[in-house]
């Protein structure tokens, strides 16, 4: 059993394409933590999406959760730039629709004070907040948060569990940045499978704070799974990364429909 904490549903522009991801989930026995950042019918990702666009994304995620309740667990995508709508959207999806987390991408840098209310809502429902973060040798996207900003956010909101997507992008930089941030988990999805990647994270933050993600469909499942299977970590450490750490987080949320799904196996 595996939990993949980083899955986007838009294989192409047809929602039916999600069947390909479900087939992979069944092949490898995976729970898919899913969030749309682009409505299936949209031509492009909008990096500063409107409230309507956000609702369309979350409606699609919710439809997938309803279709595949045993496999798909939704995170609510919001744009903190639309502060009131973002809070309402997050609260509604958590309270009414069993979403189990918050997804933040590049609409605003995560040091923006408009994130504070979102962090408080996440803490109230005990759901994690996944923040895209990438430290690049090349050019950053506008609004993209480097790991230092995520660390600052985590220190400002110690009651909120924050997931640093892509382990900070440059995972060595991320490992050092998040070493003392006890409420930050590092998601290994999305970058190339550099040898030593996961060992470096474990050396700096410990196996209890590293979690498995893929960034499918842009990345293949196998290339990301290799980051864990290719290590010389113990079987117990690999299990924590692939399943146990995230299962504990999801089982503790107040919003999950059936917490025993994870509690029983974690």
């Amino acid at each position, binding site marked *: 059993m595996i939990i993949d904490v980083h899955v986007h549903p838009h294989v192409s522009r047809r929602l039916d394409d999600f069947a390909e991801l479900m087939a992979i989930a069944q092949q490898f026995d995976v729970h898919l933590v899913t969030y749309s950042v682009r409505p299936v019918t949209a031509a492009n990702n909008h990096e500063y999406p409107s409230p309507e666009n956000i609702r369309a994304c979350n409606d699609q995620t919710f439809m997938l959760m309803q279709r595949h309740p045993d496999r798909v667990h939704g995170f609510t995508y919001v744009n903190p730039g639309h502060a009131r709508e973002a809070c309402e959207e997050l609260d509604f999806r958590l309270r009414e629709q069993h979403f189990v987390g918050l997804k933040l991408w590049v609409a605003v840098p995560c040091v923006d004070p408009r994130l504070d209310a979102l962090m408080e809502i996440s803490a109230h429902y005990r759901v994690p907040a996944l923040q895209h973060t990438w430290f690049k040798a090349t050019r950053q996207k506008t609004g993209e948060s480097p790991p230092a900003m995520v660390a600052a956010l985590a220190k400002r909101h110690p009651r909120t569990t924050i997931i640093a997507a892509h382990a900070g992008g*440059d995972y060595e930089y991320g490992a050092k940045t998040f070493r003392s941030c006890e409420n930050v988990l590092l998601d290994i999805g999305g970058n190339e*499978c550099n040898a030593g990647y996961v060992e470096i994270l474990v050396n700096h933050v410990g196996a209890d704070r590293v979690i498995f993600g893929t960034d499918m469909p842009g990345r*293949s499942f*196998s290339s990301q799974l290799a980051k864990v299977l290719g290590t*010389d970590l113990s079987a117990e450490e690999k299990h924590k990364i692939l399943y146990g750490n995230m299962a504990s987080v999801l089982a503790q949320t107040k919003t999950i429909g059936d917490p025993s799904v994870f509690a029983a196996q974690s």
Partner: protein
Amino acid sequence: MIDSNAYVGEWPFRRLPYSQPDRLLRKMDDLSIEKAVVSRLENVFFKDLLVGNRELHAIVHAHADRFIPAYTINPGYPGWDEDLEICLDELGARNLRLHPNYHGYELLGQENLRLLEIARERDLLVIIAIGLEDVRHHHRLVVVPDVGAGDIAQTVNAFPQARFLVAGGRFGEVTSIWRSVDKRENLYVENSRVQGPIHDVAKLCNTIGPDHVLFGSNAPLHYHESAKLSIETETQITDAEKQRLFRENAARLFNV
């Protein structure tokens, strides 16, 4: 199983778990990889590549049943042609590796055209390394973008009778090269940095054909398991096609 794209040696920016031959061989044993095509990793940054090539020759000589050498040539550096002669005559080179981006020359520049003419005449396999690691992760003082797919396609088109293996290309890069090349009989790609999208191996086989795609690890820079698992777990190709990717295509190309 034959790994068509690997290195032995150290990397300036981090420790690599399988950089040394004995550790690499143990890892190959664990994964049932019978042979690997290897170059000297230090030759990405060395100026005098003959030093690294002689070291590679000694390593391969000690494990001739496991390693197939690919000697690195930098046609942008003085004396490359004399070094090439030494690689051919003394070291017995049959495979050459090029790093146009790290070594800073144009694939279609005069010196490289001269090198490729020799490769064609002598029937040498030319491995063009598009990239080694995600450029976003590079050291900030050594940011080396991938070799342009268009440049590689033009180069292959200019030498339709020469044999090429494009190594370390991502999915979009290798499929773009394939589509832009007119005569593809002598063009091959490997899958080490093809790490998406989902079903990437099946998509490669559909676009390029299962006779021109090889298993390659990019070890020790990458975990071997990525390229291996990507082929092993692909549900949209047959076992016979997997066998071609894992072994048969490389056996033919490297004369094993």
